[in-house]
């Protein structure tokens, strides 16, 4: 049981234990002892570890602290900085799930600790279809669904993953159960939506990648220079700018170009698109339903679902949305059929 110190994973552990499962709590240290502003607010700090340990003790299960700080630094924090410097808007939760939680931790739990499965406190569900295929599904409570962050799990991982709290109806049920189990963190604030957003991510990126904070030209798509930008590391695609007062229209960041240190801005119409290219595409079944197929696309965490047509080639894909939308490069588009997560990929920078 991957315990974060928060009420969700603690409750999941309690549910499993009550069910009679042989549960062992593990907590991932993600920042070095005495770590700093890079600390993920969710789960990686010493305080979180203390809370996880106390919850495990309240439930009566063994508890171990496992150190993944070095891997987290490389696979999540470094990539986070590099993405911003390259003009993308990363979602570090996805990197953590892909490389730390459901890769290194899952591997260690199975290979080294002799565990059969890894459970987490994510609001999502895994079940087994009649044909034996493992399916990743949205949580019963759509308002709390976190299946978006798990799109990259393949058949082998899903075979080893358990998500106990995705079945819960709503927040009220969660809190009632937590209180009933006497969990020390039952009254704590809601777990963070995004686990790793440093208080000021710009400061982190600026410290590590100062080259991304050189001012440069702000241009329209036709090349007209409309101002200066403070550095591509300070901006996000889709961000509104106060420029264009003379033109009397609202302008949005369309594209960040680190090669020319240029930021291209445009009107709302200009910055939205129906066509989005994806890289690092993954499917929960291990392969796409077909080379071309229809699905509903979620464009950001907790976003709306938009009907779309998807064409897959290798680990790339092109998504054609029914209506134009703004999607920042570096974010993920996750594809659903009904409640089931088919898979997804990372949005490439627009050409």
């Amino acid at each position: 049981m991957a315990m974060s110190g928060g009420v969700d994973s603690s409750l999941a552990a309690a549910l499993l234990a009550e069910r009679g499962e042989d549960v062992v709590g593990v907590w991932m240290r993600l920042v070095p002892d005495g770590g700093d502003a890079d600390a993920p607010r969710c789960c990686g700090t010493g305080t979180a570890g203390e809370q996880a340990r106390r919850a495990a003790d309240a439930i009566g299960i063994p508890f171990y602290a496992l150190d993944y700080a070095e891997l987290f630094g490389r696979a999540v924090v470094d990539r986070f900085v590099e993405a911003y410097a390259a003009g993308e808007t990363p979602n570090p939760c996805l990197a953590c799930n892909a490389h730390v939680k459901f890769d290194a931790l899952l591997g260690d739990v199975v290979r080294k600790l002799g565990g059969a499965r890894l459970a987490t406190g994510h609001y999502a569900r895994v079940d087994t279809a009649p044909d034996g295929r493992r399916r990743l599904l949205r949580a019963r409570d759509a308002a709390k669904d976190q299946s978006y962050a798990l799109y990259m799990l393949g058949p082998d991982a899903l075979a080893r993953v358990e998500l106990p709290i995705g079945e819960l109806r709503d927040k009220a049920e969660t809190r009632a159960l937590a209180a009933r189990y006497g969990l020390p963190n039952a009254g704590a604030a809601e777990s963070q939506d995004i686990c790793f957003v440093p208080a000021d991510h710009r400061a982190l990126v600026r410290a590590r990648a100062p080259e991304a904070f050189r001012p440069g030209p702000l241009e329209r798509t036709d090349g007209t220079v409309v101002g200066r930008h403070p550095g591509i590391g300070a901006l996000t695609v889709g961000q509104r700018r106060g420029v264009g007062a003379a033109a009397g229209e609202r302008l949005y960041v369309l594209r960040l170009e680190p090669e020319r240190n240029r930021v291209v801005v445009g009107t709302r119409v200009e910055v939205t698109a129906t066509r989005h290219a994806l890289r690092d595409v993954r499917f929960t079944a291990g392969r796409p339903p077909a080379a071309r197929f229809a699905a509903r696309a979620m464009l950001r965490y907790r976003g709306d679902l938009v009907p779309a047509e998807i064409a897959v080639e290798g680990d790339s894909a092109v998504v054609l949305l029914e209506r134009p939308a703004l999607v920042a490069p570096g974010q993920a588009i996750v594809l659903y059929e009904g409640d089931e997560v088919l898979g997804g990929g990372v949005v490439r920078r627009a050409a």
Partner: protein
Amino acid sequence: MGRVYLDHAATTPVDPEVADAMARVLRGTHGNPSSIHAEGRAARALVDRAREEVASAIGAEPSEIVFTGGGTEADNLALRGVLRARRADGTGLVTTAIEHHAVIDTANDLAATSDGARVTVLAVDRDGLLDPAVLERALDLRTVLVSVVHGNNEIGTVQPLDLLGAICRRRGITFHTDAIQSVGALPFDVRVLPVDLVSMNAHKFYGPKGVGALYVRRGTRLATVQTGGGQERGRRTGTENVAGIVGLGVALRLAAARRTTESARQSALRDRLIAGILGRVPAAILTGHPVLRLPNHASFCFPGVRGDELVIACDLEGFAVASGSACTAGETEPSPVLLALGLDPASARGSLRVTVGRGTTAAQVDAFVTALPPIVARLRDGHRAAPGSSVTAPVASPRT
């Protein structure tokens, strides 16, 4: 079989006779030993008796025993107290590369602060032994204190205190030994051993936690560290932990009485365990001296595994053991003591310490010897699997 506790170097269970004696104190004798009245005198008498028990166990006079809040405090008192008291003679402190943190961190602190101690750290050989000639060469006219651990807690090696102490005595240098791991298990007689200060800690010899003692040979100059009411002849002030002190006295008396038979019994179990592990785990290294080691102490390094994972895996199978490596900053840090033996960091990371005790049986040792090899094999395989493998790659089948 139930759980098997093999971490007696970390702490020992409280002997029932000790617990009973302490309970009687807690329930019946509440006085402050410093009080003039009858209640105070009753408590004072208990402390006096415990002091006699401790003194008798090591061949000392009762007036030479100072009770402290534990072994770390005893080490602190010894180092800080001697350096401060002998400041006019010099500031040199010589110690070894295999001391417990309580000694080495205190020494470093003394060097860094306004006390300005000159600290020399001596290397040991690959079995962890300090060569008396190396010690001799390191001493000069301004050295005032030498501190050498008697039995090291990580690797078990026992130092030749008689030779080392004699060198110090010839030069008028105060000689302290951290005997926390050894005093309950090895013969210890200060009438024969040329030691001036000896640190002891009750919870290592079946006594309670939170109480220890420092032997201070008559004539040794020692300044106080903790200031206050003047108890313990001003050497360690503060109202005495009467129940704890009583427990310490009983525990050490019992340990001394049982020492010969218990140490023989435990060293036989230790040797059985060592032979079993070396025979069944490929590439296992025994750390510390093969013969001159604490009777209950076995320590190994297994290249290709991480010590913390080893401890977790053993715990999940019901065996309580320990590792010398500490987990910090993303990578398991190998222990400085193991590195001081000349072990390479990769091997040093896979350290395991197994220490038997009064409750250990041959059946328990055999069970551990049977359980460990598959654990090591599984962890070695787990490390060999490519790190950062794709989540869609097949995972290994569950362990059989």
